[in-house]
């Protein structure tokens, strides 16, 4: 989607604020938001691409005015409601101060709840998005490509600034799940991901430095031969 999250190349978003000796979390609620998001993810009801899409659906004015873990919280709440792990009314009642215990979740979901003992394995043996599938690559290192000029209304990882542009295949990373379908229907549609090298002048015009390049990781479905 052409959302405000896709901000590469935008102007006017303010100075970069670098904090000396920055703590990992700035408030207790950030710790809790981080941890419940990870823990709920391990229930296996949604994948990482769906989580990203859920955050992208935050209304743009709200997205720009809120902090990082507020984006996470927005996404988490949306996913919990969409998968019916929580009901919207339940959340509103609890926000209103109702402390009556909530009904237990389905046994199948409870059985998947992450325990403290599970955490190291869950984090360190994480499998990632690489797929052991024998999918032929459409391009080889050194090939000239042009990215597709597409504007899907749903999730995509092809940033706007890199659409319809000529680049060169710099490296073939292998076969990965395709986020555009994985986020919408959990269809992995495995395909090659490449590091594509773009000259800044191709992206930003003749005033860009000739010694500035941008490398973007892109899937076969985003690319055509140049």
């Amino acid at each position, binding site marked *: 989607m052409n959302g405000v*999250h896709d*901000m*590469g190349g*935008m*102007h006017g*978003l*303010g*100075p*970069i*604020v*670098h*904090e000396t000796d*920055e703590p*990992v979390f*700035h*408030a207790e*609620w950030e710790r*809790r938001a*981080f941890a*419940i998001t*990870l*823990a*709920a993810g391990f229930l296996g009801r949604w994948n990482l691409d769906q989580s*990203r899409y859920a955050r992208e659906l935050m209304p743009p004015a709200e997205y*720009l005015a809120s902090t*990082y873990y507020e984006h996470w919280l927005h996404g988490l709440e949306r996913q919990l409601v969409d998968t019916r*792990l*929580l009901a919207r009314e*339940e*959340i509103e009642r*609890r*926000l209103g101060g109702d402390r009556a215990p909530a009904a*237990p*979740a389905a046994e199948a*979901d409870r059985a998947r*709840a992450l*325990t*403290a003992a599970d*955490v190291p394995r869950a*984090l360190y*043996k*994480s*499998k990632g*998005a*690489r797929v052991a599938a024998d999918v032929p690559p459409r391009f080889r290192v050194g090939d000239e490509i042009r990215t597709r000029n597409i504007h899907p209304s749903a999730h995509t*990882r*092809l*940033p706007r*600034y890199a659409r319809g542009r000529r680049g060169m295949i710099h490296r073939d*990373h292998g076969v990965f799940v395709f*986020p555009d379908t994985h986020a919408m229907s959990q269809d992995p549609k495995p395909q090659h*991901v490449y*590091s594509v090298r773009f000259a800044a002048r191709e992206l930003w015009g003749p005033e860009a*430095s000739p*010694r*500035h390049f*941008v*490398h973007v990781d*892109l*899937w076969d479905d985003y690319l055509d031969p140049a």
Partner: protein
Amino acid sequence: MSDDHDHHPEEPGSPLTDVQLRVRALESLLVDKGLVDPAALDVLIDTYETKVGPRNGARVVARAWGDPAYKQRLLADATAAVAELGYMGRQGEDMVVLENTPTVHNMVVCTLCSCYPWPLLGLPPVWYKSSPYRSRAVLDPRGVLRDFGLDLGEDVEIRVWDSTAELRYVVLPERPPGTGGLSEDELADLVTRDSMIGVAKVEAPAQGARR
């Protein structure tokens, strides 16, 4: 770039904000329903607050500076090479290390969200996740680097890596001059988080300011 930051500390006795109430509501409901175990939350938080952070990446960089064979493995297959030192897992399942040299400077961004190599650098700092950095890094990297106090000549090639897929990028900064006699631990102490994102150089011991 300024050094102050408008985060929201929780003052004891002050009323809870909307976001604090919302986190509390979600957490308490998830625990009630048996979907989240509070003990697991504590372990998750402790892992990224005290165990996984930029010291991991600094150890990898120091090893690469002192061991040419290791450096070669690191640049060829970073995921396997960092696993030799015990670093692996979530948000670092597939890693790539980029070598900075006097003529090529690499820097890393995620314009679409906040992708970052957790096993080597921990959770990203606020500026990395913020709109100003995400918007400017790909368009005006020299300007961004100047804001960080790094003025690279026009003769240096800048490569910006936008982490749009599940590859996680770490910069291998240049080893500063005058560090020939240092041990691996002493070298690791020089390596900053920002140098491994590619927005700073590693400074020689005398003038090293940690970021």
